[in-house]
């Protein structure tokens, strides 16, 4: 105890001396030695949770930051867990679920810990809160182009587990990619529920309805619910009796694919977390939000063996156009834009 008090006293004295001797802010820039990440489901879902945890761990390893993982916390109130983590005094808490974006800033302010949240760009607060509404809309546009080139029935489907900004921007971009490639195609769109991220049964039920409505390619966005969507395409034939193919988002389900995974809009969140750590070290935290894009490789489209080479080549040509700025894909984060694009209004 004495040692601790002595050490704290010495630190306070050194800090005071540093100020009085006019040391530069660069020297005083905050050090970050640990960060904590909270996820609603386990980091083995081949999707949102896994990419979040893997990205944080990779960023931590690259920049010498210890990563504390609190996973599988569900979609309820995580304030007790946030308080426990805050007691560990991490340099940053990453609240990796849109459902946490009220509680995390609240506990962050209470405990004096910096927080990163998702789907809430307006929450940006200098020195304390940042947002990373990671949107793979550019990748989703490519997925739309791919779907348009590969559909046999002329109908493609979009199933989502909710309408958070990230899902909306990808749904909208997918629809734009489809329409830009072939305006005659029909897009069917359905949401499983208000926040049905783990509703696998709902995912299967809604996907089966879209397949019955003629869709032979499903663009699915969900966490646990995406396994229900996958199950639906594996067990329900298309109207012509052939296979229905699935385009996933965020992660790569290739290891568990039974031959129905056409592609995935892959996210790599490592650069996002690295940028946050670097901004903390440069005393710039809270001055900007973060995102992902095709150009730096943080968004990519998965190439599966089910995609013919010529079609893949055409899709990659569109990718080059996006990267060069020739084709601009604007993100639309609101549900109304998605509905308008899907219905063609």
């Amino acid at each position: 105890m004495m040692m601790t008090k002595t050490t704290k006293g010495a630190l306070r004295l050194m800090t005071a001396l540093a100020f009085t001797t006019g040391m530069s802010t660069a020297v005083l820039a905050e050090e970050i030695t640990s960060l904590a990440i909270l996820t609603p489901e386990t980091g083995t879902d081949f999707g949102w949770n896994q990419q979040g945890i893997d990205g944080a761990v990779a960023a931590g390893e690259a920049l010498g930051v210890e990563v504390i993982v609190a996973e599988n916390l569900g979609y309820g109130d995580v304030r007790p867990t946030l308080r426990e983590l805050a007691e560990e005094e991490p340099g940053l808490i990453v609240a990796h679920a849109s459902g946490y974006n009220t509680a995390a800033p609240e506990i962050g302010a209470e405990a004096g810990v910096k927080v990163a949240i998702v789907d809430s760009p307006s929450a940006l607060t200098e020195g304390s809160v940042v947002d990373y509404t990671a949107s793979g809309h550019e990748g989703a546009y490519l997925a739309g182009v791919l779907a348009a080139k590969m559909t046999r029935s002329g109908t493609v489907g979009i199933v989502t587990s909710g309408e958070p900004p990230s899902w909306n921007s990808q749904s909208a971009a997918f629809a734009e990619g489809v329409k830009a490639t072939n305006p005659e195609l029909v897009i069917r769109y359905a949401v499983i529920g208000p926040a049905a991220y783990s509703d696998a049964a709902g995912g299967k039920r809604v996907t089966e309805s879209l397949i019955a409505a003629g869709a032979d390619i499903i663009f699915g966005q969900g966490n646990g619910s995406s396994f229900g969507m996958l199950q639906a395409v594996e067990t329900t034939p298309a109207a012509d009796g052939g296979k229905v193919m699935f385009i996933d988002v965020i992660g790569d389900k290739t290891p568990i694919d039974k031959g129905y995974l056409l592609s995935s809009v892959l996210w790599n969140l490592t650069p996002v977390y690295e940028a946050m750590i670097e901004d903390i070290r440069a005393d710039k935290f809270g001055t900007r939000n973060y995102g992902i894009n095709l150009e730096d490789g943080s968004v990519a489209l998965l190439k599966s063996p089910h995609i013919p080479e010529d079609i893949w080549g055409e899709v990659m040509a569109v990718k080059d156009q996006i990267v060069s700025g020739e084709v601009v894909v604007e993100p639309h984060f609101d549900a109304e834009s998605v509905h308008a694009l899907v219905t063609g209004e």
Partner: protein
Amino acid sequence: MTLFTDTFLIALIAGIAAAGVPLLLAGLGEQLSEKAGVLNVGIEGMMLGGAYLGFYIAWATESTGLGFLGGILGGLLVSSLMVLFCVRMGLNQIVIGIALTLGAEGATALLHHVQFSRLYPRLSDVATWRIPGLADIPIIGPALFDREPVVYLAVALVPILVYVYRRTHLGLAVQAAGDKPAALDSAGQNVLAIRSFAVLACGGMVGLGGAFMSIVGAGVFVPFMTHGNGFIGIVLAMLARGRPLWVLFGAVLFGACLSAATALQVAGVAIPTDVVQMLPFVAVMLVLLIAGRNAKLPAALGAAYVRGER
């Protein structure tokens, strides 16, 4: 392309059964428990227990029949804790119910993490029973009369429970355990045994509903997959006020509204999604509130029974 084809309508009606059966089993189970005086808030946990164990056994044995039995067992295991803490030890039913749900969520998520999180095994289609004649009715036939046996069992439980409640000593004893447990005790019946039976039977039914959800509804188990269906089952039971037929009506209405919500979205109807998705909840609450406004809940509901105490 025409949207409302036979195939699309069959899928929508089949969706009513897929969404409604777990709710029906949960509502009937909760109703039985409530009739005996036990407010079983833990049925979400029982449903998760049934979903996990049912899926695990179906996957491990490659037998969906054994999987459904496993679902009943999963529900029984969780409900046995409810019996121990609430019926036998007389602890607060709401607190224990919430604790059981949270515990089941954590336990099944952990088991999933250990067993399935690298593989995410999915089951193949479950065999159906085709009812001759009825299955040939256009659209409705293939959607409702060529279904998994659990669908028929769930619907058959409605008249069975009506008969039990109205015509048998067991039904009378269950309702007495919820209305006037002291009188039942005076008549020489064991109140705690009857309440224990009701809670266990509730767990079995709810567990079967969970297994239906994981084996038939999703074909896969994922953490938290019951997604509040147990709580909706409690609402159905509370609003149906003791009448099994109203639980069936509520479950069908809820499933129908879910399918209608999907149909409206697929058709591109310009209504905000949140409004469309409120339909099932609003419709069920409105109808059952109107229908059940004169009914009463058991007098001793939620109260632990201790012999000699008033």
